[in-house]
């Protein structure tokens, strides 16, 4: 085992409580990030699923002419947001209605004239179904004189996006606060470790050890702490996922790259905090 690794592990043995605190602090800050990730991922999944169904429907006045419709359809098809455009005639609308609402079939059959309007159904391209895109297309439809009324999902797309933004902001704030605490604890752990080994450090310098060599055990300690914190955070996130899944609602588990990212983030965080701390505290030895 290398000198640096041996010394880094010895530091864990010397101050186990402090090490545990550092691990827990990192784990908590990344757990918050993990929870946000879980939420964001599941929301995106849900959004993607309904995204393909996002339609803007323009109901037409009965006096719309074939010529007007022809022009409008050509114009709409050229919009970049539009994936598919379908003209639904009055007859088709009635047929669908009768199909979907069997119990009212008699009512529909008895009618003297068909009360359902014809419509233009616009399906948006995936990735073009943001609230802005939806309202752009809706406005465009509304602008035609023969369009009576435009219908689109009642702003639920917007609501989902807002929820996701709120979650993101909360996770950034809470996760950031925890990260700050984690950074302070790591720095303290390193200050104590440097102090405990100050004689050794001064002898190392006396006999010609390089700064990098002197710093390595401490940085390694930070990396191991961060790695443990990251793994713990991933485990906590999984526990939260399993609990939610069982008692509240069905969720999808995160892709493995996200989990790897959490562990890597912990490790990088441990590395950065320790290198900053060790540079500062070694100057004082």
């Amino acid at each position, binding site marked *: 085992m290398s*000198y640096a690794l041996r010394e880094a592990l010895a530091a864990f043995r010397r101050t186990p409580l402090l090490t545990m605190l550092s691990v827990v602090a990192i784990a908590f800050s990344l757990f918050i990030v993990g929870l946000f990730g879980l939420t964001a991922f599941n929301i995106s999944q849900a959004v993607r699923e309904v995204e393909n169904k996002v339609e803007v429907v323009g109901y037409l006045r009965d006096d719309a002419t074939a010529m007007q419709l022809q022009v409008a359809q050509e114009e709409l098809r050229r919009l970049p947001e539009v994936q598919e455009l379908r003209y639904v005639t009055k007859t088709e609308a009635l047929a669908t209605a009768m199909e979907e609402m069997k119990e009212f079939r008699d009512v529909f059959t008895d009618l003297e004239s068909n009360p359902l309007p014809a419509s233009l159904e616009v399906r948006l391209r995936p990735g073009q179904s943001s609230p802005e895109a939806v309202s752009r297309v809706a406005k465009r439809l509304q602008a035609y004189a023969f369009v009576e009324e435009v219908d689109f999902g009642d702003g639920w797309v917007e609501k989902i996006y807002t929820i996701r933004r709120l979650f993101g902001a909360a996770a950034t704030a809470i996760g950031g606060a925890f990260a700050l605490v984690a950074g302070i604890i790591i720095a303290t752990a390193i200050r104590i470790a440097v102090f405990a080994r100050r*004689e*050794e450090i*001064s*002898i*190392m*310098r*006396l*006999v*010609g*050890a*390089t*700064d990098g*060599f*002197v710093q390595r055990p401490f940085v390694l300690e930070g990396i191991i702490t961060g790695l443990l914190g990251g793994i713990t955070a991933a485990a906590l996130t999984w526990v939260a996922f399993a609990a939610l899944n069982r008692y509240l609602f069905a969720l999808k588990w995160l892709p493995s790259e996200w989990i790897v990212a959490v562990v890597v983030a912990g490790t990088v965080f441990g590395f950065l905090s320790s290198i900053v701390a060790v540079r500062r505290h070694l100057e004082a030895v």
Partner: protein
Amino acid sequence: MIRLSSVSKEYARSGAALRDVSFHVRKGELVFLTGHSGAGKSTVMRLIQMADMPSGGEVRVSGFSSKLIRQRDIPMLRRKMGVVFQDFRLLRDRTAEENVAFALEVTGTKRSAIAPRAHRVLTQVGLAHKARAYPDELSGGERQRVAIARALVNEPLLLLADEPTGNLDEWAAKGVFELFREINAMGMTVLMATHDLDLVRAHPQYRVIELSQGAVVYDSAPTPATREPQQA
């Protein structure tokens, strides 16, 4: 090997520790640096290790200049010198052998070479039989021998000793100095700071530089400044 040129050192709180100090120690010399307590001996030693930088003038050691050296070159300078102190500075949780091996470990010596080299140098200082003892189990003289072994194990060109006999009884002091003479006889340059005038007087064949209040007041064999001007 060592050249100080008009070196001065000022400390913010205590004022001038060295004023206009110049001397040149050549390869293979053994030199006593004497003077009262507070005369500036340890300050000179620290400047030679480049643990501190002069306020004025220049210190040159084995090709390194205090004016030019970069922070990251200092470890390379340190590997060319061994340093011994009055208080030994051994690690108490390591055996004699481990203390010596430590100097090799932290300077990147190949693992397989560490134990034999540590053992060889402990034999050289006459302590092979105490290799497994901890510092607390050794006498003052023995501890200083371990410290000397540690200073020698990286095969330096220069040995700096700051009051190495200050904590030793007369007999142990004599033994340690005999060891320095042997090391010097093998070609190593030795600079020893001491206020033990008896020891200095007992060995008139060696050069003496005396400091008083931060200035050189006596040099028994000054090296002409004009010789080897570029080779410090």
